[in-house]
């Protein structure tokens, strides 16, 4: 098991956004999360990546307990150093890419492995070039993000996350900020990673993609997991009324 999130609760003020969510992800699994806007999908990923702190529940990465909840119901995070260790297990790809504009493509990818993981520059460079080849961006290694299309930027962001060799990669609507004609090139890269058995959790509105690529689909609504299972089951034969309603809006 790569990730276990159990009984996650998260509120913003009086707005309870995650109401007892549990999510387990096995090695090599590709999990898609779908659901209407505002249902808490981003918040779930942000809690999983420690960008938000949960109110209660537990988070375990690779048998390392990162967050526990005692009898008083308050989530307790492990110390800073231990948390830094756990952070090495995951990567996150943002909807808005969030590349560093003042770094070249290559430096965006190489900087964290060198300065955070303290790995050797030569080795990191080689791997970065390898990743760029995979993303079909070899020729743009020296370009700056502002010189790239959205689709290219997102592929660089994926390469940047992969350069740290995470065990699991989260995607928060990786194609939502892209022009429709550019979504394909990003989805293709994610599909390729799925074939290589990269463990991934993808929040997406690309239903055909979720159906084709994932091992499991989770439908979230109003802070709950309403339904989950095999993509053919969830898309082909949804059990819950809310799932049916939601999916109907996506059929043309």
């Amino acid at each position, binding site marked *: 098991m790569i990730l276990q999130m159990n009984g996650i609760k998260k509120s913003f003020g009086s707005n309870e956004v995650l109401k007892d969510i549990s999510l387990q992800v096995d090695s090599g699994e590709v999990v898609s999360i779908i659901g209407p806007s505002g249902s808490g999908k981003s918040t779930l990923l942000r809690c999983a990546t420690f*960008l938000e702190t949960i109110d209660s529940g537990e988070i375990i990465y690779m048998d390392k307990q990162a967050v526990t909840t005692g009898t008083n119901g308050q989530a307790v995070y492990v110390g800073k150093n231990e948390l830094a260790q756990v952070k090495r297990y995951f990567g996150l790809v943002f909807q808005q890419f969030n590349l560093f*504009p003042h770094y070249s493509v290559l430096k965006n990818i190489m900087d964290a492995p060198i300065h955070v993981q303290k790995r050797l520059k030569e080795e990191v460079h080689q791997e970065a070039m390898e990743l760029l080849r995979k993303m079909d961006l070899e020729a743009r290694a020296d370009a700056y993000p502002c010189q790239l299309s959205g689709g290219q930027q997102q592929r660089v962001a994926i390469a940047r996350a992969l350069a740290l060799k995470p065990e699991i990669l989260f995607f928060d609507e990786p194609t939502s900020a892209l022009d429709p004609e550019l979504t394909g090139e990003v989805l293709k890269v994610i599909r390729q990673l799925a074939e290589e058995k990269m463990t991934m959790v993808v929040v997406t509105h690309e239903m055909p993609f979720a159906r084709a690529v994932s091992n499991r689909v989770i439908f979230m609504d109003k802070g709950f997991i309403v339904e989950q299972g095999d993509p053919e089951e969830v898309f082909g034969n949804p059990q819950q009324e809310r799932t049916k309603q939601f999916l109907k809006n996506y059929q043309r």
Partner: protein
Amino acid sequence: MTLSTMLASMGEGMLRTCAIFFLTLIFSMPLGMIVMFLRRSRFRIVREITKIYIAIMRGTPLMLQLLAWYFGPYYLFGMSIRGYRFPAIIIGFAMNYAAYFAEIYRGGIEAIPQGQYEAAEVLGYNSVQTFFKIILPQVIKTILPSVTNEVITLVKDTSLAFTLAYNEMFSLAKQIAASQTSFMPFVIAGIFYFIANYVVAFVMERIEKHYDYYK
């Protein structure tokens, strides 16, 4: 009085003007950074006090502030202010410009999208790395035009040191103009400020060019 003797007697004033200029920059730019951090403190009381400080520095004439810094210790505490003229000028300028720089820095910092911090955090950068590697270079780029404006204003503001009867270049120009009944010292002063600002603009443009490689 020949032109060269005029220049010679104004020369020392020019050095003093340069001293005010550089010392003000050296102190006010880092001080502005501290003021900016206080202005963004998580403690409300610190934020409010800093806001008042900035409001006073920006809302009252620098000339008045110089007088207050110089004579304040005497009138408030009865302290001797002999030999304190130059330090008072530097303190007055630095405290005033720090307020302006703080607001410029703050604008620059607040213009950085939250996503930059989040990306850095997920990639594992610590907060010092995030600030110096990711945030600061982008802040510098965005604030350069405003900093240039401020520096050019400072060149001209140095003449306010005459308030404390400090013989910087402009004060000397006035004295010589009066004693020689000549307009020439003012022409020289004008040329001096113009050239100084030309150099400032040139240097700042070079720095801006240096950051031009991305948008």
